[in-house]
């Protein structure tokens, strides 16, 4: 059962990810990306990481993509696809993207392969366990990242005040 769900989710993930790249209208790209995030959240649930799945939806699908949608909506990029980029830029983009792909491929090639067996009753992804890990073992990185976020908030407020 879980295997079929996995295949179905994977197909949706890959197709929607491809659609993000190939869609003509940026609006549809954004929506395909939301679908992609949802199917990735489905993968997290299959791995019994419910907390991660729901936070993924709240943060990415619920907040970041809304922002994307706002920008696309208000700029109204729905007209003709942009042809202003020169040939040089396209070649450069193809080369740099291809290099990244190559590096990823090579790094995966040397990594260990094998079948990963999920423990029968794994509850690592549950809220209690994530919380205990975060506030015991990883408390320093956690606090540092929260300070980072705080500084981003303060920075955006300062910028907004300057504009107004």
């Amino acid at each position, binding site marked *: 059962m879980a295997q079929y769900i996995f295949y179905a989710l994977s197909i949706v993930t890959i197709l929607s990810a491809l659609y993000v790249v190939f869609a003509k209208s940026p609006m549809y790209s954004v929506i395909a990306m939301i679908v992609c995030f949802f199917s990735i959240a489905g993968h997290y649930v299959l791995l019994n990481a419910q907390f991660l799945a*729901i936070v993924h939806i*709240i943060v990415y699908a619920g907040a970041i993509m*809304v922002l994307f949608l*706002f920008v696309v909506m208000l700029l109204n990029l729905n007209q003709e696809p942009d042809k202003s980029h020169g040939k040089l830029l396209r070649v450069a983009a193809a080369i740099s993207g291809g290099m990244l792909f190559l590096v990823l491929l090579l790094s995966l090639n040397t990594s260990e392969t094998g079948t990963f067996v999920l423990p029968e009753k794994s509850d690592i992804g549950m809220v209690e366990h994530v919380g205990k890990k975060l506030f015991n073992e990883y408390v320093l990185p956690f606090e540092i990242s929260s300070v980072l976020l705080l500084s981003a908030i303060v920075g955006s407020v300062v910028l907004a005040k300057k504009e107004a």
Partner: protein
Amino acid sequence: MEWLPIIDKSVLILIIFLISLGIAAYSTYAERKVAAFLQDRIGPNRAGPFGLLQPIADGVKMFMKEEIIPSAADKFLFMLGPCIFMMTALMTSAVIPWGKPLDIGGYQMNLQVADINIGVLYIVATASVGVYGIMLGGWASNNKFSLLGAVRASSQMISYELAMGLSIIGVLLISNSLSLSDIVKGQEGFHWNIIYQPLGFLIFLICAFAECNRAPFDLAECETELVGGYHTEYSSMKLGMFLFAEYVNMFISSALIVCLFFGGYNFPGIDNLDLPQNVASIISVVIFFAKTFFFIFFFMWIRWTIPRFRYDQLMKLGWQILLPLSIFNVVATAAWLTFVK
């Protein structure tokens, strides 16, 4: 693979689906009757006794109207908008515990579709995804009033989501769990969260009004400024879906308020009566719905009591009053739990 749980859950989902739609339909009738009562009028009384068939007549009318899709609209997104809005409105009901478990021939039937241990986060997630329905619908209409309405509605929902999420944290701290069934179980007897979290409740209530786009926060469809807001271009049943989903949202929000702050299906002294399990279960469901109906009435009551906010007042209330208050509530609750209790 056990088939019994699947059948059990499917039946429960179907029943909750039908009940949600039924209650939403009769909320439209109730709204008109309550409005009439508050304004000293009679209200709908033509279709059936006391006008009770009015929602059915309205539904038939909605379906029969001509369907117009603007020629410059993005047809797919135009149709997707109301679908997403309705779907997210109905999805939240999956984690609400409707009553105590029923005993059917030795099989314990849990009156909650999914007892996940992240129930509260699930609610926040579906609320944040609901914004897409409005945004896509408003944008795809290719009308500036629709777009302005959509931008207003979504920025309002995003702003009030923050304070809503923070106001629930107080409840979570008290009940020590993110699962709604545990939160309700922890309020047994008269240990309702409203007693320990009056501020949290007030913030949650105000945010629920804003999230449902209900008066006094119905700026998204403010007819004096925006014609009809994000659903200006919608007609026929697509418009019906948007309006209907608002009532479903209202029902679900009321049920959530009852779950989080008013003891859910608990009632003082229900355990002392020593009833058989099934009778107790049915009474608990009745109590749950009675409390929920009170809050639906409360939503309508407020609509005819408080005038609409201005847009800057709305944003000021959300960001400068409710958000700091909810943060204060979290800190105060945490301090109380650590030092006093």
